[in-house]
């Protein structure tokens, strides 16, 4: 299957990419292409122009910026998974990037593409949401920061304006009392999550005093399991708190699972994620 015809431009800088986005009718950025090209081959997407940002190697980095780790938007999943800075300070991001698809997908797909694509079944959005991360977008009038909680607006929709490009993702360094886990369940190798749960906790006395929980594929966007977080903050034991995991969610029914099964999975995987996060 061959995509419909399109024009192809190679961006030489983020400014150039943003300029082209304004200039060209019906244009899309092409990063790793591992969400966009499959959709184009199926003619589910048919942009008139692709702006290839895949050669902007300056945007492939993982850097220590004080209290946060900054990740360039063009950093491939493989490089996120293997980044020592992330493994040391925010291991959940590296771990989740290593759970994306298969090695071939991780050799091409980028963290910026994963977040900008706005797919509620993707792994990194729920992780960045649970971490309270920040997304840095560049538009015609410069850069702006968007909180992860404001970024994901709908299925395949984000807060990025048509002429904006995501350039960086920032995640906090986790302290020594923190624990994390990402529990992903999928029915087939290399598949997206049927449901997955990202948990980041503050450990105290063998339990959790505080938790942030992100849900993958439990609605039109990645979600925070706020009822679980409140229960933990109120001193509830993990098993009790996790029972609230499906509250306020609107999971899809599809070939992989019914909505009911997804609600069940959310509760089970949240319990496992919290237990694992507390354990270390």
């Amino acid at each position, binding site marked *: 299957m061959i995509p419909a015809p*399109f024009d192809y431009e190679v961006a030489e800088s983020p400014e150039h990419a943003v300029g082209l986005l*304004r200039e060209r009718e019906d244009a899309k950025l092409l990063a790793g292409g591992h969400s966009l090209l499959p959709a184009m081959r199926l003619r*589910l997407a048919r942009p008139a122009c692709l702006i290839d940002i895949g050669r902007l190697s300056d945007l492939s980095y993982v850097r220590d910026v004080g209290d946060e780790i900054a990740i360039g938007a063009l950093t491939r999943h493989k490089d996120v998974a293997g980044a020592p800075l992330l493994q040391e300070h925010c291991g959940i991001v590296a771990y989740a990037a290593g759970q994306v698809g*298969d090695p071939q997908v991780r050799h091409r797909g980028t963290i910026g593409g994963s977040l900008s694509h706005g797919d509620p079944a993707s792994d990194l959005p729920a992780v960045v949401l649970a971490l309270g991360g920040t997304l840095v977008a560049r538009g015609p009038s410069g850069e702006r920061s968007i909180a992860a909680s404001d970024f994901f607006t709908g299925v395949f929709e984000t807060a990025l304006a048509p002429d904006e490009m995501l350039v960086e993702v920032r995640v906090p360094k986790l302290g020594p009392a923190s624990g994390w886990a990402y529990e992903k369940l999928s029915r087939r190798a290399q598949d997206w999550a049927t449901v997955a749960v990202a948990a980041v906790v503050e450990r105290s006395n063998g339990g959790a005093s505080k938790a942030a929980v992100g849900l993958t594929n439990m609605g039109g966007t990645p979600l925070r399991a706020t009822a679980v977080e409140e229960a933990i903050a109120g001193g509830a034991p993990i098993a009790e708190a996790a029972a609230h995991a499906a509250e306020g969610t609107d999971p899809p029914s*599809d070939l992989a699972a019914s909505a009911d099964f997804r609600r069940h999975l959310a509760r089970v995987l949240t319990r496992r994620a919290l237990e694992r996060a507390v354990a270390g």
Partner: protein
Amino acid sequence: MERARARQPRKVVAQSHELEAHPQAVRVTVWLCATRPDSVWKLSPPRDTLGLALRGEEGALRHVALTVNGVRHELELEPRELLAYVLRERLGLTGTNIGCDTSSCGACTVLVNGESVKSCTMLGVQADGLEITTIEGLARDGELHPVQQAFHEHHALQCGYCTPGMVLAAVSLIEAGAATDEQAIRLGLEGNLCRCTGYHNIVKAVAAAAGVS
């Protein structure tokens, strides 16, 4: 150039009504293509309703230089030509098989700058200036590559359709130092499907080539 655009949330994938009606359409369709190709036609609207014929003209050709198995090729490519087709149709390197054509099966795996990539999910123009290795480029002076030799010795193929992709995925895995034990090899080959062997002999062959038990 200065055309102002309203600041509104961006629809990232498609303007297609299908996606709105069926949020999981992309993944579901990909899945259907891989598992039930006959049903896909029912999901995808006829070409003309998508405006293919209306758009009419092809994208402008681009000059691309690829190094494939050590040989430099200068090509004029349409941007929409996928690397798998460039290798097969333009360069006659038909060892790169196309199985699913939906990024799922790994039969089309090649090495791009030494790393495994599904060549059906990369444009030829994206490979401009890069080094590609296909299955034809592995053997040296009539000697099979160690991974090929191990596949031979461990009877790691039956029909052979998945084999070129499987071998190249394994080469990439071993080079990355990730083929550390049986479990790592199984996980590392999860992007490659085999409909014949049941995988055991493939895993044995890769373990042997990687020098792990």
